[in-house]
Protein backbone atom coordinates (compact mmCIF):
# COMPACT_ATOMS: atom_id res chain seq x y z
CA UNK A 1 0.00 0.00 0.00
CA UNK A 2 2.74 2.39 0.96
CA UNK A 3 4.48 1.75 -2.33
CA UNK A 4 1.28 2.26 -4.29
CA UNK A 5 0.93 5.72 -2.77
CA UNK A 6 4.51 6.60 -3.49
CA UNK A 7 4.11 5.46 -7.08
CA UNK A 8 1.11 7.69 -7.71
CA UNK A 9 2.77 10.65 -6.00
CA UNK A 10 5.87 10.34 -8.13
CA UNK A 11 3.89 10.14 -11.34
CA UNK A 12 1.74 13.12 -10.66
CA UNK A 13 4.49 15.36 -9.41
CA UNK A 14 6.75 14.55 -12.30
CA UNK A 15 3.93 15.18 -14.74
CA UNK A 16 3.61 18.72 -13.49
CA UNK A 17 7.28 19.66 -13.56
CA UNK A 18 10.06 17.12 -13.45
CA UNK A 19 12.69 19.44 -12.04
CA UNK A 20 10.38 20.79 -9.38
CA UNK A 21 9.47 17.19 -8.57
CA UNK A 22 13.14 16.33 -8.29
CA UNK A 23 13.46 19.08 -5.72
CA UNK A 24 10.22 18.40 -3.87
CA UNK A 25 10.70 14.68 -3.55
CA UNK A 26 14.42 14.39 -3.25
CA UNK A 27 15.52 17.92 -2.48
CA UNK A 28 17.54 17.69 -5.66
CA UNK A 29 19.03 20.65 -7.48
CA UNK A 30 20.94 19.90 -10.65
CA UNK A 31 24.08 21.56 -11.94
CA UNK A 32 23.75 24.21 -14.66
CA UNK A 33 24.03 21.47 -17.30
CA UNK A 34 20.88 19.87 -15.82
CA UNK A 35 22.85 16.88 -14.66
CA UNK A 36 24.10 15.69 -11.33
CA UNK A 37 23.27 16.98 -7.86
CA UNK A 38 24.38 20.51 -7.01
CA UNK A 39 26.43 20.39 -3.79
CA UNK A 40 25.04 16.89 -3.28
CA UNK A 41 21.52 18.18 -2.67
CA UNK A 42 19.06 15.29 -2.91
CA UNK A 43 21.66 12.67 -3.63
CA UNK A 44 21.28 10.92 -0.30
CA UNK A 45 17.48 11.03 -0.52
CA UNK A 46 17.42 9.56 -3.99
CA UNK A 47 19.99 7.02 -2.97
CA UNK A 48 17.78 6.03 -0.05
CA UNK A 49 14.77 5.55 -2.31
CA UNK A 50 16.65 3.49 -4.85
CA UNK A 51 18.32 1.73 -1.96
CA UNK A 52 21.86 2.36 -3.11
CA UNK A 53 24.52 4.93 -3.65
CA UNK A 54 24.62 6.35 -7.18
CA UNK A 55 28.29 6.32 -8.20
CA UNK A 56 27.80 8.12 -11.49
CA UNK A 57 25.42 10.67 -10.08
CA UNK A 58 27.31 13.51 -11.77
CA UNK A 59 26.07 12.13 -15.12
CA UNK A 60 22.50 11.60 -14.02
CA UNK A 61 20.22 13.95 -15.91
CA UNK A 62 17.71 15.94 -13.90
CA UNK A 63 14.14 14.71 -14.31
CA UNK A 64 15.47 11.25 -15.14
CA UNK A 65 12.59 9.32 -13.69
CA UNK A 66 9.85 11.00 -15.66
CA UNK A 67 11.87 11.01 -18.88
CA UNK A 68 12.41 7.31 -18.53
CA UNK A 69 8.83 6.85 -17.36
CA UNK A 70 7.73 8.11 -20.71
CA UNK A 71 9.89 5.59 -22.52
CA UNK A 72 7.76 4.37 -25.35
CA UNK A 73 9.69 1.62 -27.01
CA UNK A 74 6.74 0.62 -29.17
CA UNK A 75 6.84 4.01 -30.84
CA UNK A 76 10.62 4.11 -30.84
CA UNK A 77 12.12 4.22 -34.30
CA UNK A 78 15.70 4.35 -35.50
CA UNK A 79 16.37 7.03 -38.10
CA UNK A 80 17.39 5.48 -41.41
CA UNK A 81 16.10 2.00 -40.54
CA UNK A 82 12.95 0.51 -42.00
CA UNK A 83 10.78 -2.33 -40.74
CA UNK A 84 13.11 -3.47 -37.96
CA UNK A 85 11.70 -4.96 -34.75
CA UNK A 86 13.15 -3.01 -31.84
CA UNK A 87 14.14 -5.31 -28.98
CA UNK A 88 15.61 -2.63 -26.79
CA UNK A 89 16.01 1.13 -27.04
CA UNK A 90 18.82 1.63 -24.52
CA UNK A 91 21.11 0.19 -25.70
CA UNK A 92 19.59 0.11 -29.16
CA UNK A 93 19.04 -3.42 -30.47
CA UNK A 94 16.81 -4.23 -33.44
CA UNK A 95 16.40 -7.15 -35.83
CA UNK A 96 14.96 -7.48 -39.32
CA UNK A 97 12.01 -9.78 -40.09
CA UNK A 98 13.08 -12.58 -42.47
CA UNK A 99 10.88 -11.47 -45.36
CA UNK A 100 12.58 -8.05 -45.35
CA UNK A 101 15.98 -9.68 -45.90
CA UNK A 102 15.23 -10.90 -49.42
CA UNK A 103 17.77 -8.63 -51.18
CA UNK A 104 21.08 -10.23 -52.18
CA UNK A 105 22.82 -7.18 -50.74
CA UNK A 106 21.15 -6.05 -47.53
CA UNK A 107 20.10 -2.38 -47.79
CA UNK A 108 21.45 -0.14 -45.04
CA UNK A 109 17.89 0.41 -43.82
CA UNK A 110 17.47 -3.33 -43.26
CA UNK A 111 20.78 -4.11 -41.54
CA UNK A 112 20.17 -5.19 -37.95
CA UNK A 113 21.53 -3.18 -35.02
CA UNK A 114 23.28 -4.72 -32.04
CA UNK A 115 24.77 -2.29 -29.55
CA UNK A 116 26.41 -3.08 -26.24
CA UNK A 117 26.61 0.54 -25.14
CA UNK A 118 25.57 4.01 -26.17
CA UNK A 119 26.45 4.96 -29.74
CA UNK A 120 28.63 8.08 -30.07
CA UNK A 121 26.98 11.15 -31.53
CA UNK A 122 30.09 12.77 -32.95
CA UNK A 123 30.73 10.45 -35.89
CA UNK A 124 32.14 12.76 -38.55
CA UNK A 125 34.70 11.07 -40.80
CA UNK A 126 36.80 14.25 -40.82
CA UNK A 127 39.27 14.13 -38.01
CA UNK A 128 38.44 10.52 -37.06
CA UNK A 129 41.62 8.61 -36.37
CA UNK A 130 42.57 4.99 -35.93
CA UNK A 131 45.48 4.09 -33.69
CA UNK A 132 47.47 0.90 -34.36
CA UNK A 133 49.69 -0.02 -31.42
CA UNK A 134 50.83 -2.79 -29.11
CA UNK A 135 53.14 -5.40 -30.60
CA UNK A 136 53.95 -3.58 -33.82
CA UNK A 137 57.27 -2.26 -35.07
CA UNK A 138 55.91 1.19 -35.81
CA UNK A 139 52.75 2.38 -34.00
CA UNK A 140 50.55 4.44 -36.33
CA UNK A 141 47.72 6.89 -36.17
CA UNK A 142 45.78 7.16 -39.42
CA UNK A 143 42.89 9.28 -40.64
CA UNK A 144 40.26 7.69 -42.86
CA UNK A 145 41.67 9.68 -45.81
CA UNK A 146 45.11 8.21 -45.09
CA UNK A 147 43.67 4.68 -44.96
CA UNK A 148 42.14 5.24 -48.41
CA UNK A 149 45.36 6.68 -49.83
CA UNK A 150 47.88 4.26 -48.43
CA UNK A 151 46.12 0.93 -48.87
CA UNK A 152 44.21 -0.94 -51.54
CA UNK A 153 40.48 -0.24 -51.23
CA UNK A 154 38.26 -3.30 -51.67
CA UNK A 155 34.50 -3.91 -51.66
CA UNK A 156 32.90 -7.21 -50.69
CA UNK A 157 29.46 -8.49 -49.73
CA UNK A 158 30.05 -9.86 -46.22
CA UNK A 159 27.76 -11.64 -43.82
CA UNK A 160 27.61 -10.39 -40.26
CA UNK A 161 25.52 -12.23 -37.69
CA UNK A 162 25.03 -11.60 -33.99
CA UNK A 163 26.28 -14.53 -31.90
CA UNK A 164 22.95 -14.52 -30.05
CA UNK A 165 20.75 -14.66 -33.16
CA UNK A 166 18.02 -17.22 -32.38
CA UNK A 167 18.35 -16.89 -28.60
CA UNK A 168 14.56 -16.57 -28.19
CA UNK A 169 14.19 -20.31 -28.84
CA UNK A 170 16.21 -21.44 -25.85
CA UNK A 171 14.40 -23.16 -23.02
CA UNK A 172 15.14 -22.61 -20.19
CA UNK A 173 15.50 -19.03 -21.45
CA UNK A 174 18.97 -17.63 -21.94
CA UNK A 175 19.65 -14.09 -20.77
CA UNK A 176 20.24 -11.29 -23.22
CA UNK A 177 18.34 -9.77 -26.10
CA UNK A 178 15.78 -12.25 -27.35
CA UNK A 179 16.72 -12.30 -31.02
CA UNK A 180 14.61 -14.50 -33.27
CA UNK A 181 16.09 -14.91 -36.77
CA UNK A 182 16.82 -11.39 -37.98
CA UNK A 183 20.23 -10.49 -36.52
CA UNK A 184 21.95 -11.32 -39.82
CA UNK A 185 22.83 -9.12 -42.77
CA UNK A 186 24.94 -9.16 -45.91
CA UNK A 187 25.74 -5.58 -46.93
CA UNK A 188 28.62 -4.61 -49.19
CA UNK A 189 31.47 -3.17 -47.18
CA UNK A 190 34.16 -0.95 -48.65
CA UNK A 191 37.41 -0.56 -46.82
CA UNK A 192 41.02 -1.65 -46.57
CA UNK A 193 42.30 -5.02 -45.49
CA UNK A 194 43.21 -5.11 -41.82
CA UNK A 195 46.16 -7.29 -42.84
CA UNK A 196 47.63 -4.55 -45.07
CA UNK A 197 47.43 -2.01 -42.26
CA UNK A 198 48.97 -4.38 -39.71
CA UNK A 199 51.75 -5.31 -42.13
CA UNK A 200 52.52 -1.62 -42.67
CA UNK A 201 52.87 -1.23 -38.91
CA UNK A 202 55.01 -4.38 -38.73
CA UNK A 203 53.59 -7.30 -36.77
CA UNK A 204 55.97 -8.51 -34.07
CA UNK A 205 56.31 -12.30 -33.85
CA UNK A 206 54.94 -12.38 -30.28
CA UNK A 207 51.59 -10.97 -31.41
CA UNK A 208 48.86 -13.60 -31.23
CA UNK A 209 45.63 -11.65 -30.73
CA UNK A 210 44.06 -8.30 -31.59
CA UNK A 211 42.26 -5.99 -29.15
CA UNK A 212 39.66 -3.58 -30.54
CA UNK A 213 38.42 -0.31 -29.07
CA UNK A 214 35.54 1.91 -30.13
CA UNK A 215 34.00 5.27 -29.28
CA UNK A 216 30.75 3.94 -27.83
CA UNK A 217 30.07 4.56 -24.16
CA UNK A 218 29.48 2.02 -21.41
CA UNK A 219 25.86 1.91 -20.22
CA UNK A 220 26.84 2.95 -16.70
CA UNK A 221 28.32 6.18 -18.03
CA UNK A 222 31.67 5.28 -16.48
CA UNK A 223 34.25 6.68 -18.92
CA UNK A 224 36.84 4.19 -17.64
CA UNK A 225 34.79 1.23 -18.93
CA UNK A 226 34.53 0.06 -22.53
CA UNK A 227 31.07 -0.83 -23.82
CA UNK A 228 32.62 -3.76 -25.66
CA UNK A 229 36.24 -4.49 -26.53
CA UNK A 230 36.81 -7.80 -28.25
CA UNK A 231 39.51 -9.22 -30.47
CA UNK A 232 40.49 -12.12 -32.70
CA UNK A 233 43.46 -14.40 -33.29
CA UNK A 234 46.05 -13.09 -35.76
CA UNK A 235 45.08 -15.63 -38.43
CA UNK A 236 41.58 -14.18 -38.61
CA UNK A 237 42.93 -10.62 -38.55
CA UNK A 238 45.19 -11.52 -41.51
CA UNK A 239 42.34 -13.02 -43.57
CA UNK A 240 42.06 -10.96 -46.79
CA UNK A 241 38.30 -10.53 -46.19
CA UNK A 242 38.72 -8.99 -42.73
CA UNK A 243 38.34 -5.28 -43.37
CA UNK A 244 38.59 -1.88 -41.78
CA UNK A 245 35.48 -0.50 -43.47
CA UNK A 246 34.35 3.06 -44.11
CA UNK A 247 31.43 2.54 -46.52
CA UNK A 248 28.30 0.39 -46.43
CA UNK A 249 26.74 -0.30 -49.85
CA UNK A 250 28.83 2.55 -51.27
CA UNK A 251 27.32 5.02 -48.78
CA UNK A 252 28.51 6.35 -45.46
CA UNK A 253 28.04 3.66 -42.79
CA UNK A 254 24.82 4.01 -40.80
CA UNK A 255 25.41 5.54 -37.38
CA UNK A 256 24.01 2.47 -35.64
CA UNK A 257 26.18 0.18 -37.77
CA UNK A 258 29.39 1.86 -36.63
CA UNK A 259 29.97 5.07 -38.63
CA UNK A 260 32.42 6.30 -39.69
CA UNK A 261 34.83 3.37 -39.25
CA UNK A 262 34.48 -0.25 -38.17
CA UNK A 263 36.01 -3.67 -38.46
CA UNK A 264 34.18 -6.26 -40.55
CA UNK A 265 35.39 -9.75 -39.57
CA UNK A 266 32.81 -11.74 -41.56
CA UNK A 267 31.49 -15.08 -40.40
CA UNK A 268 32.31 -14.45 -36.73
CA UNK A 269 30.01 -13.12 -34.00
CA UNK A 270 29.27 -9.51 -34.88
CA UNK A 271 30.94 -8.26 -31.70
CA UNK A 272 34.32 -9.20 -33.22
CA UNK A 273 33.68 -6.46 -35.78
CA UNK A 274 34.23 -3.43 -33.54
CA UNK A 275 32.07 -0.44 -34.45
CA UNK A 276 33.09 3.23 -34.14
CA UNK A 277 36.65 1.91 -34.32
CA UNK A 278 39.38 4.05 -32.77
CA UNK A 279 42.18 1.67 -31.89
CA UNK A 280 43.58 -1.79 -32.66
CA UNK A 281 46.21 -3.12 -30.33
CA UNK A 282 48.22 -6.30 -30.92
CA UNK A 283 48.77 -8.48 -27.85
CA UNK A 284 50.77 -11.54 -26.84
CA UNK A 285 47.75 -13.04 -25.08
CA UNK A 286 44.09 -13.63 -25.80
CA UNK A 287 42.46 -10.23 -25.31
CA UNK A 288 40.70 -9.80 -21.97
CA UNK A 289 38.60 -6.72 -22.74
CA UNK A 290 34.92 -6.09 -22.02
CA UNK A 291 32.71 -8.96 -23.24
CA UNK A 292 35.66 -11.30 -23.92
CA UNK A 293 34.56 -13.44 -21.02
CA UNK A 294 34.06 -15.27 -18.81
CA UNK A 295 30.76 -16.17 -20.50
CA UNK A 296 30.15 -13.44 -23.06
CA UNK A 297 30.36 -14.77 -26.62
CA UNK A 298 31.42 -18.14 -25.29
CA UNK A 299 29.84 -21.61 -25.20
CA UNK A 300 30.66 -24.72 -23.17
CA UNK A 301 33.36 -27.00 -24.57
CA UNK A 302 31.09 -30.02 -24.15
CA UNK A 303 27.33 -30.58 -24.62
CA UNK A 304 25.29 -29.68 -21.55
CA UNK A 305 21.76 -30.49 -20.43
CA UNK A 306 19.18 -27.71 -20.72
CA UNK A 307 19.47 -25.51 -17.63
CA UNK A 308 22.65 -27.18 -16.40
CA UNK A 309 25.06 -25.09 -14.35
CA UNK A 310 28.33 -24.79 -16.22
CA UNK A 311 31.52 -23.48 -14.57
CA UNK A 312 33.19 -20.43 -16.13
CA UNK A 313 36.30 -22.51 -16.82
CA UNK A 314 34.35 -24.76 -19.22
CA UNK A 315 33.54 -21.93 -21.64
CA UNK A 316 35.43 -21.29 -24.88
CA UNK A 317 35.39 -18.29 -27.21
CA UNK A 318 33.10 -18.55 -30.24
CA UNK A 319 35.00 -18.22 -33.51
CA UNK A 320 33.26 -19.11 -36.79
CA UNK A 321 29.46 -19.01 -36.77
CA UNK A 322 27.74 -22.26 -37.88
CA UNK A 323 25.96 -23.12 -41.15
CA UNK A 324 22.56 -21.48 -41.40
CA UNK A 325 19.86 -20.29 -43.81
CA UNK A 326 16.76 -18.15 -44.02
CA UNK A 327 13.58 -18.30 -46.08
CA UNK A 328 13.11 -14.71 -47.26
CA UNK A 329 10.24 -15.33 -49.72
CA UNK A 330 7.38 -15.79 -49.22
CA UNK A 331 6.54 -14.20 -45.90
CA UNK A 332 5.30 -16.70 -43.35
CA UNK A 333 1.51 -16.97 -43.51
CA UNK A 334 1.42 -16.73 -47.31
CA UNK A 335 -1.74 -18.08 -48.97
CA UNK A 336 -1.54 -19.30 -52.55
CA UNK A 337 -4.24 -17.89 -54.84
CA UNK A 338 -7.01 -20.30 -55.86
CA UNK A 339 -5.89 -22.72 -58.58
CA UNK A 340 -2.25 -22.29 -57.66
CA UNK A 341 -0.40 -25.33 -56.45
CA UNK A 342 3.18 -24.27 -57.02
CA UNK A 343 5.37 -21.67 -55.44
CA UNK A 344 8.94 -20.46 -55.69
CA UNK A 345 10.55 -20.22 -52.27
CA UNK A 346 13.90 -18.58 -51.87
CA UNK A 347 16.34 -17.25 -49.35
CA UNK A 348 19.98 -17.08 -48.36
CA UNK A 349 22.43 -19.49 -46.78
CA UNK A 350 25.79 -18.89 -45.12
CA UNK A 351 28.31 -20.82 -43.04
CA UNK A 352 30.64 -18.59 -41.04
CA UNK A 353 34.19 -19.14 -42.33
CA UNK A 354 32.99 -21.98 -44.57
CA UNK A 355 30.86 -22.22 -47.67
CA UNK A 356 27.38 -23.67 -48.19
CA UNK A 357 27.45 -26.58 -50.63
CA UNK A 358 23.89 -27.93 -50.49
CA UNK A 359 20.45 -26.62 -49.72
CA UNK A 360 17.29 -28.66 -49.13
CA UNK A 361 13.67 -27.86 -48.35
CA UNK A 362 10.80 -29.94 -47.02
CA UNK A 363 7.04 -29.34 -46.98
CA UNK A 364 6.20 -32.42 -44.91
CA UNK A 365 8.11 -31.76 -41.69
CA UNK A 366 11.23 -33.51 -42.87
CA UNK A 367 9.78 -36.82 -44.14
CA UNK A 368 11.01 -36.01 -47.66
CA UNK A 369 13.50 -33.42 -48.83
CA UNK A 370 13.84 -31.61 -52.12
CA UNK A 371 17.15 -30.20 -53.31
CA UNK A 372 17.15 -26.46 -53.88
CA UNK A 373 19.16 -24.57 -56.45
CA UNK A 374 22.11 -22.90 -54.75
CA UNK A 375 24.21 -20.08 -56.20
CA UNK A 376 27.90 -19.54 -55.62
CA UNK A 377 28.73 -16.51 -53.49
CA UNK A 378 29.89 -13.39 -55.39
CA UNK A 379 32.91 -13.44 -53.09
CA UNK A 380 34.00 -15.56 -50.16
CA UNK A 381 32.05 -14.75 -46.96
CA UNK A 382 28.98 -13.50 -48.81
CA UNK A 383 25.75 -15.32 -48.14
CA UNK A 384 24.46 -17.39 -51.05
CA UNK A 385 21.10 -17.24 -52.82
CA UNK A 386 19.02 -20.40 -52.95
CA UNK A 387 15.63 -21.06 -54.53
CA UNK A 388 13.28 -24.01 -55.04
CA UNK A 389 10.05 -24.63 -56.95
CA UNK A 390 7.55 -26.39 -54.71
CA UNK A 391 4.37 -28.22 -55.72
CA UNK A 392 1.69 -28.90 -53.17
CA UNK A 393 -0.44 -32.05 -53.56
CA UNK A 394 -3.67 -30.80 -51.98
CA UNK A 395 -5.43 -28.03 -50.13
CA UNK A 396 -4.17 -27.41 -46.66
CA UNK A 397 -1.62 -25.98 -44.25
CA UNK A 398 2.03 -26.55 -44.96
CA UNK A 399 5.25 -25.61 -43.29
CA UNK A 400 8.35 -25.08 -45.33
CA UNK A 401 11.59 -25.88 -43.57
CA UNK A 402 14.95 -25.05 -45.10
CA UNK A 403 18.25 -26.77 -44.38
CA UNK A 404 21.74 -25.78 -45.48
CA UNK A 405 24.80 -28.05 -45.50
CA UNK A 406 28.35 -26.70 -45.43
CA UNK A 407 31.47 -27.92 -47.22
CA UNK A 408 32.38 -30.02 -44.19
CA UNK A 409 29.08 -31.91 -44.40
CA UNK A 410 27.52 -30.22 -41.37
CA UNK A 411 23.77 -29.60 -41.62
CA UNK A 412 21.43 -27.31 -39.78
CA UNK A 413 19.71 -29.24 -36.98
CA UNK A 414 16.00 -29.30 -36.13
CA UNK A 415 16.77 -27.87 -32.73
CA UNK A 416 19.86 -26.40 -31.17
CA UNK A 417 21.95 -27.79 -28.36
CA UNK A 418 21.14 -25.70 -25.30
CA UNK A 419 23.89 -23.47 -23.89
CA UNK A 420 23.68 -21.06 -20.94
CA UNK A 421 24.03 -17.80 -22.88
CA UNK A 422 21.90 -18.79 -25.84
CA UNK A 423 24.45 -18.55 -28.65
CA UNK A 424 24.82 -20.28 -32.03
CA UNK A 425 21.22 -21.28 -32.65
CA UNK A 426 21.44 -22.45 -36.25
CA UNK A 427 18.29 -24.58 -36.20
CA UNK A 428 16.30 -24.59 -39.44
CA UNK A 429 14.09 -21.65 -40.30
CA UNK A 430 10.46 -22.40 -41.08
CA UNK A 431 7.48 -20.60 -42.55
CA UNK A 432 3.78 -21.41 -42.91
CA UNK A 433 1.99 -21.55 -46.28
CA UNK A 434 -1.68 -22.23 -46.96
CA UNK A 435 -3.00 -23.79 -50.18
CA UNK A 436 -6.65 -22.96 -50.92
CA UNK A 437 -7.49 -25.41 -53.67
Amino acid at each position, binding site marked *: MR*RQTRERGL*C*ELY*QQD*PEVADELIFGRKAHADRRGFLRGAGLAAMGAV*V*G*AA*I*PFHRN*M*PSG*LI*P*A*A*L*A*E*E*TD*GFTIAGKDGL*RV*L*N*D*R*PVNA*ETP*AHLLDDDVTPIARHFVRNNGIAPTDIGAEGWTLKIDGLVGQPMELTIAELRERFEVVRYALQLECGGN*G*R*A*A*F*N*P*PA*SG*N*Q*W*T*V*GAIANSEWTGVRLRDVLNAAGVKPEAIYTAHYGADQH*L*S*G*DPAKDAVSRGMPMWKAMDPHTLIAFEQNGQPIHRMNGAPLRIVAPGWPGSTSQKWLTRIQLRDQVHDGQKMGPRSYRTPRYPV*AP*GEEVPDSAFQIIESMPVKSLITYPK*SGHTLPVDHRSLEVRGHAWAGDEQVTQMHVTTDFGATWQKAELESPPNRYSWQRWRAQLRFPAKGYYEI*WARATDNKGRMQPF*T*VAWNPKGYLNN*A*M*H*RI*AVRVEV
Partner: protein
Amino acid sequence: MAVRRHFLAAGLLAGLGGALAAGVGWSAPAAAQSDAYGGLPEGENRVLVFALCSGCHSVKLVMQQGMTRAKWDATLDWMVEQQGMPELDAQTESEVLDYLAEHFNTDHRPGGGPQGAGGAGGLSPYNSMQPMTPTE
Protein backbone atom coordinates in the same frame (compact mmCIF):
# COMPACT_ATOMS: atom_id res chain seq x y z
CA MET B 1 18.25 16.48 -25.47
CA ALA B 2 15.68 16.68 -28.25
CA VAL B 3 15.01 13.00 -27.92
CA ARG B 4 14.51 13.24 -24.18
CA ARG B 5 12.12 16.14 -24.56
CA HIS B 6 10.10 14.17 -27.06
CA PHE B 7 9.84 11.23 -24.70
CA LEU B 8 8.96 13.53 -21.87
CA ALA B 9 6.16 15.18 -23.86
CA ALA B 10 4.74 11.82 -24.86
CA GLY B 11 4.88 10.67 -21.28
CA LEU B 12 3.15 13.77 -20.00
CA LEU B 13 0.25 13.18 -22.35
CA ALA B 14 -0.01 9.48 -21.57
CA GLY B 15 0.36 10.07 -17.84
CA LEU B 16 -2.08 12.95 -17.81
CA GLY B 17 -4.64 10.79 -19.60
CA GLY B 18 -4.29 8.23 -16.87
CA ALA B 19 -4.54 10.78 -14.08
CA LEU B 20 -7.63 12.43 -15.54
CA ALA B 21 -9.28 9.09 -16.12
CA ALA B 22 -8.59 8.00 -12.56
CA GLY B 23 -9.91 11.31 -11.24
CA VAL B 24 -13.31 11.04 -12.85
CA GLY B 25 -13.74 7.33 -12.39
CA TRP B 26 -13.13 6.19 -15.98
CA SER B 27 -10.98 3.23 -16.50
CA ALA B 28 -7.54 4.41 -17.48
CA PRO B 29 -6.60 3.92 -21.14
CA ALA B 30 -4.67 0.70 -21.66
CA ALA B 31 -1.81 2.53 -23.33
CA ALA B 32 -1.31 4.85 -20.39
CA GLN B 33 -1.28 1.94 -17.98
CA SER B 34 1.13 -0.24 -19.89
CA ASP B 35 3.54 2.63 -20.58
CA ALA B 36 4.02 3.51 -16.91
CA TYR B 37 7.47 2.54 -15.68
CA GLY B 38 8.48 1.49 -19.14
CA GLY B 39 5.73 -1.12 -19.24
CA LEU B 40 6.87 -3.08 -16.19
CA PRO B 41 3.92 -5.05 -14.80
CA GLU B 42 2.30 -3.66 -11.68
CA GLY B 43 3.37 -5.12 -8.40
CA GLU B 44 5.19 -4.60 -5.18
CA ASN B 45 8.63 -3.03 -5.76
CA ARG B 46 7.94 -2.03 -9.36
CA VAL B 47 9.16 1.55 -8.80
CA LEU B 48 12.31 0.35 -7.13
CA VAL B 49 13.11 -2.04 -9.97
CA PHE B 50 12.38 0.62 -12.54
CA ALA B 51 14.56 3.21 -10.83
CA LEU B 52 17.50 0.87 -10.37
CA CYS B 53 17.50 -0.83 -13.77
CA SER B 54 16.71 2.14 -15.95
CA GLY B 55 19.67 4.05 -14.55
CA CYS B 56 21.78 2.17 -17.11
CA HIS B 57 19.49 0.44 -19.58
CA SER B 58 15.93 0.31 -20.78
CA VAL B 59 13.63 -1.96 -18.80
CA LYS B 60 12.75 -3.43 -22.17
CA LEU B 61 15.86 -5.53 -21.66
CA VAL B 62 14.51 -6.72 -18.30
CA MET B 63 11.15 -7.59 -19.80
CA GLN B 64 12.80 -9.83 -22.41
CA GLN B 65 14.21 -12.17 -19.78
CA GLY B 66 12.92 -15.27 -18.04
CA MET B 67 15.18 -16.44 -15.21
CA THR B 68 15.02 -18.20 -11.90
CA ARG B 69 15.61 -16.14 -8.77
CA ALA B 70 19.10 -17.64 -8.53
CA LYS B 71 19.91 -16.57 -12.09
CA TRP B 72 18.59 -13.09 -11.45
CA ASP B 73 20.74 -12.97 -8.35
CA ALA B 74 23.80 -13.99 -10.39
CA THR B 75 22.91 -11.39 -13.01
CA LEU B 76 22.79 -8.62 -10.40
CA ASP B 77 26.13 -9.82 -9.03
CA TRP B 78 27.58 -9.66 -12.54
CA MET B 79 26.27 -6.12 -13.00
CA VAL B 80 27.82 -5.06 -9.69
CA GLU B 81 31.13 -6.80 -10.26
CA GLN B 82 31.66 -5.99 -13.92
CA GLN B 83 29.20 -3.41 -15.16
CA GLY B 84 29.49 -0.60 -12.64
CA MET B 85 26.18 -1.10 -10.88
CA PRO B 86 26.08 0.20 -7.30
CA GLU B 87 26.00 -2.58 -4.72
CA LEU B 88 22.57 -3.01 -3.12
CA ASP B 89 21.98 -3.52 0.56
CA ALA B 90 20.53 -6.93 1.43
CA GLN B 91 16.98 -5.67 1.95
CA THR B 92 16.85 -3.81 -1.37
CA GLU B 93 18.40 -6.67 -3.25
CA SER B 94 15.84 -9.03 -1.82
CA GLU B 95 12.98 -6.74 -2.85
CA VAL B 96 14.35 -6.42 -6.36
CA LEU B 97 14.76 -10.18 -6.66
CA ASP B 98 11.23 -10.72 -5.34
CA TYR B 99 9.82 -8.63 -8.12
CA LEU B 100 12.01 -10.03 -10.89
CA ALA B 101 11.50 -13.64 -9.88
CA GLU B 102 7.75 -13.15 -9.63
CA HIS B 103 7.24 -11.42 -12.98
CA PHE B 104 10.14 -12.64 -15.11
CA ASN B 105 10.74 -16.23 -14.18
CA THR B 106 11.46 -19.05 -16.62
CA ASP B 107 7.81 -19.28 -17.63
CA HIS B 108 7.99 -15.72 -19.00
CA ARG B 109 8.61 -16.06 -22.76
CA PRO B 110 7.88 -12.80 -24.56
CA GLY B 111 9.92 -13.61 -27.62
CA GLY B 112 10.13 -17.35 -27.84
CA GLY B 113 8.75 -20.56 -26.55
CA PRO B 114 6.78 -23.08 -28.55
CA GLN B 115 5.09 -21.19 -31.35
CA GLY B 116 3.59 -21.84 -34.75
CA ALA B 117 5.60 -21.15 -37.85
CA GLY B 118 4.03 -17.70 -37.99
CA GLY B 119 5.21 -16.79 -34.51
CA ALA B 120 8.56 -15.70 -33.19
CA GLY B 121 9.88 -14.98 -36.66
CA GLY B 122 9.98 -18.62 -37.76
CA LEU B 123 12.24 -20.03 -35.09
CA SER B 124 12.21 -23.77 -35.02
CA PRO B 125 10.38 -24.99 -31.96
CA TYR B 126 12.62 -25.82 -29.10
CA ASN B 127 11.10 -28.99 -27.80
CA SER B 128 11.03 -28.01 -24.14
CA MET B 129 13.56 -30.71 -23.37
CA GLN B 130 14.22 -31.13 -19.71
CA PRO B 131 17.22 -32.98 -18.35
CA MET B 132 16.37 -36.67 -18.46
CA THR B 133 15.84 -38.34 -15.13
CA PRO B 134 18.54 -40.92 -14.57
CA THR B 135 17.09 -44.41 -14.35
CA GLU B 136 17.23 -46.06 -10.95
